[in-house]
């Protein structure tokens, strides 16, 4: 059996910054349980002697000349912001009252 519990799903949702409803926690617990059971088989063949691949076609030290190119203007960068002020993105308080 998989180790996916409602508590774990709530913890993962909090790490992912998704405020799940209780019904979503219930359905995700059962769905993720099934999915994890079926994908855990990767461990069968992933032995110590096999190296990991992160990118299919590895490139190394990709760089370009350090020159100023075309960049977005401040106005463009802020054009989709839900809220902004004085040329900056604006957000509500970072810390709550009890913090």
């Amino acid at each position, binding site marked *: 059996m998989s180790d*996916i519990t409602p508590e*774990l*799903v709530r913890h*993962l*949702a*909090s*790490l*992912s*910054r*998704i*405020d*799940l*409803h209780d019904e*979503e926690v219930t359905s*995700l617990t059962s*769905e*993720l349980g*099934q*999915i*994890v059971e*079926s*994908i*855990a*088989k*990767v*461990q*069968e*063949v*992933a*032995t110590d002697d*096999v*190296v*990991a*691949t*992160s*990118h*299919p*076609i590895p*490139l190394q030290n*990709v760089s*370009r000349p350090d020159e100023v190119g075309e960049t*977005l203007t401040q106005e*463009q*960068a802020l*054009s*989709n*912001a*839900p*809220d902004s002020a004085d040329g900056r*993105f604006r*957000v*509500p*308080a*970072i*810390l*709550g009252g009890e913090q």
Partner: protein
Amino acid sequence: MSGIVGLTAAQLAERLGAGEVSSVEATSAHLDRIAAVDGDVNAFLHVSDHALEVARSIDDRRAAGEELGPLAGVPLAIKDVLVTTDMPSTSGSRILEGYMSPYDATVVARSRAAGLVPLGKTNMDEFAMGSSTEHSAFGPTRNPWDLSRIPGGSGGGSAAAVAAFEAPLALGSDTGGSIRQPAHVTGTVGVKPTYGAVSRYGSIALASSLDQVGPVSRTVLDAGLLQDIVQGHDRFDSTSLTTQWPSMAEAAREGARGDVLDGLRVGIVRQLGGEGFQAGVRQRFTETVEMLQAAGAEVVEVDAPHFEYAVAAYYLILPAEASSNLAKFDSVRFGLRVEPAGATSEQMMSATREAGFGPEVKRRIILGTYALSSGYYAAYYGSAQKVRTLIQRDFSAAFAQVDVLVSPTAPTTAFPLGERVNDPLAMYLNDVTTIPANLAGIPGISVPIGLAPEDSLPVGLQIMAPAYRDDRLYRVGAAVEALVENALGGTLISRAPALGGAR
């Protein structure tokens, strides 16, 4: 399909070049077609309101004697995962509803520079997570062959748009089959190029080690003409290859002559067939292989023992990368913001992501967060990366024996809308044939080969080649296309239902 919208991109380009048709006429014809059939198909999330203006400027430049590119004046549909400055880009998600990008994706910029006329943005599963477009926040696209069935996914909108003659060409993206599987179920052509062959700059990232942008069309030549425009190095994408690519259109023209099949070594992957594959899909696949043999190809079975672990590895790697890529949707710099009274920034982010993401996106973000968690990382994500190495080795061993590998592009024809949308595992297994190519970074194409006898729905042949050998795919793909057309006495797509009240 008759008239301008029935022309392939290559035919239309020729008439545009000869002055027999103007871009305004071609663009109007496609806009009229969209108006007539897209209420049924729902391939488009947004139709451009200035396509005619762009078309007129191409006509003016041509009239002024300017030397234009081979596809100048030809209309193009663009998957909504690609950002555009003149149309909203949502990636099928509520969290990006109305988002207007301050820059164009490189493939869009190159298409515009080549004189293609963007018609609109096509529907897709939210953030390209899905195989049916049913996970779009804006309603599913319907398959033009049977409106009660899925058009494939995630790029169901682009495939349905070309299958329904709403556009001759489209751009798509393929992370685990999102270009090839929709091509299979809609009787069209789709190509996933070699990883890094086409820039992903401005493609809203799903899984960065798997995503690849590519062409969607009704013929292999048309796909090649579009790949010629969008391929090549882009300094804005650090995974972009500096390879000098040959012309894929030229490869397709060569392939259509057929002699490429004589002596071609073709491998059938034992693990991509048999049980779980629909009888009619297997039948059309076997017939096509027999046609290849009759044309002189040497066909052998090859073994890829680790392919049975591909889906499992993919559904660890993809969610892990997606959970990281989608962290940027935090309601600070762009997108939806939901701000409960008195909320802190963090509470605002959690409320926004709860409201803005659909169920499949939440499922994969949570799964990816799990796979990357301390204590699980080595067992899941680390193991999946090792499987990736094993799959690459399987491909290397296979390509030591053969020039190309073939399989059915997907195990079944288009399934009914609603059938698998609440069964994530069943939906995931649909990608079993296409995922290995993404894990290994190699190119793949889907070419229509006929209709399954039991349901009269399209079946595609997937052809895979070693990395960097996209030209071989186009050569062999065009040869297969010619064989199939010859056997059917016409193109498969000409058998698609008329749509627009005529059915």
